[in-house]
């Protein structure tokens, strides 16, 4: 049983839970850039939140299924069409053998997740199966999908209620305007006294350099001390670095594990799934909060989402 890629789009990869416990080996997180949309899609077809799905970036993508299959789509896609007919997101959809599934461009927003009620055959390493593109590891031969690729899967009889549908109040709102909450980074003071105030004063826009590794932000440059570089230290998805240009650089899921630029801020865990919906031109307003408050927000979000999704992890 398999899915054939008819149109792959800009960057379509197999992504699920991130790699954990291997950052000291230089292995990045990878995994779904928007873990919340992934979790919602997986849940609709009876899978747990971190299982492998297809992550589609910005442009539309078309797939053909050679066997009947249950799927769900959640994300920023403008439309979902089966053989040219519009179908909704946020509910399981039944496909018949030979059906063509067209997932529209992601806008506003950046990414859409296609979950399939079957076991997708992906390359495994370090206990994970997500794609890490820079090193060509995991996923579908470590790379983005191309037209004519055939993704094998094993049918699993899905035990789901076909009437399942994400409650309206839990459906993410996809936008090009984001408020992202940050805590102070370790070098916020060393890099520049008052850098957090400056970062949160004016909105930033995501520049042309925007991918799974990181996003260059454009806006009022932040002034900083001469000690532009520091001894390399750990960075994480959501860390905001201050390179010599003064334009902040926001790290994404595929970001390297250590870096030598001052770490001025860190996007809080509860807001990190939104990084996956940032694309060139997205506008960001940063808001500075304490680590304690960030933990409260994270737990509130988990509790809200787990009322629908059950056990859930956000990364």
């Amino acid at each position: 049983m398999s899915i054939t890629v008819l149109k792959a789009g800009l960057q379509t990869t197999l992504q699920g839970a991130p790699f954990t416990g291997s950052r000291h080996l230089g292995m990045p997180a990878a995994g779904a850039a928007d873990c919340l949309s992934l979790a919602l899609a997986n849940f609709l077809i009876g899978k747990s939140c971190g299982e492998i799905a297809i992550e589609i970036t910005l442009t539309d993508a078309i797939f053909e299924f050679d066997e009947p299959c249950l799927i769900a789509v959640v994300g920023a896609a403008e439309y979902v069409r089966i053989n040219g007919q519009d179908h909704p997101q946020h509910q399981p959809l039944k496909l018949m053998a030979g059906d063509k599934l067209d997932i529209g461009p992601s806008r506003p927003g950046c990414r859409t997740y296609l979950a399939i009620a079957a076991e997708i055959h992906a390359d495994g390493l370090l206990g994970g199966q997500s794609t890490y593109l820079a090193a060509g590891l995991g996923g579908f031969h470590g790379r983005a999908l191309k037209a004519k690729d055939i993704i094998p899967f094993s049918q699993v009889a899905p035990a789901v209620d076909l009437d399942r549908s994400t409650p309206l109040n839990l459906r993410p709102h996809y936008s090009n305007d984001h408020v992202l909450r940050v805590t102070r980074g370790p070098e916020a003071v060393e890099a520049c006294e008052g850098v957090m105030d400056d970062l949160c004063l004016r909105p930033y826009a995501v520049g042309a350099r925007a991918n799974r590794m990181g996003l260059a932000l454009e806006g009022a440059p932040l002034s900083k001390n001469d000690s532009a570089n520091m001894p390399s230290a750990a960075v994480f998805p959501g860390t905001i670095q201050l390179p010599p240009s003064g334009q902040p650089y926001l790290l994404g899921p595929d970001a390297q594990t250590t870096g030598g630029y001052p770490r001025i801020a860190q996007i809080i865990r509860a807001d990190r799934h939104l990084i996956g919906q940032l694309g060139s031109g997205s506008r960001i307003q940063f808001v500075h909060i304490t680590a304690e408050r960030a933990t409260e927000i994270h737990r509130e979000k988990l509790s809200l989402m787990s009322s629908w999704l059950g056990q859930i992890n956000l990364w």
Partner: protein
Amino acid sequence: MSGHDPMIHICDDWISIKLPDWKTILAAQNALSASSHWTEIVPGLDSIAVQFDPALLSPDDAARMASDQMKNLTRVVSHSSATVVIPVCYDAALAPDREYVAEKLGIAAAALPSWHASQLQRVAMLGFMPGFAYLESEEECPAIGRLASPRQLVSAGSIGIIGRQSCIYSFDSPGGWPIIGRTPLRLFDPAKNQPALLAAGQTVRFQSITKDAFDNWQREEKA
């Protein structure tokens, strides 16, 4: 968040701890590894960071726990003390910056292999890419600096040097370090139980090999 150690910085799901030297960092890595609370333990050059699940642990508790676990660090090197020998081919075909580096060092390009291979190096940390090793030489060395513009493609196994620090590229990737040779060894093999060839704290010595030996080795690695 009052009264905690000023060397500890707290974010909402990770904390960074400044440490005085590499031996303390290794000892800290060792001590922290005994706890199941840390989802990541990442050594840096003058710090270590731990990540945790904020659903289970508050930032303050995490900081307190890390402090407690790092009390009375015993300075044992956790990894095997045996020196890892890394074969390197310094042939010009695999060393595009041989002349540039030799000139910076004030030595003849032909003397570069013996100069580099005579030094004992320590793995300071892994980072940048899976298995990518940052090495520090025990010997003083003039600063060489990075290339003015990074290369789009540096081959896996390439040895870079910017002075006392050398590095080994683990995958084909962009890179800005001047390249003086290449090893046929795989720095990261996901099929292995321990995928990374090197670990922070290990000592490394390079051994010069001929281009023929390199080619044979690479053929065998691929087979």
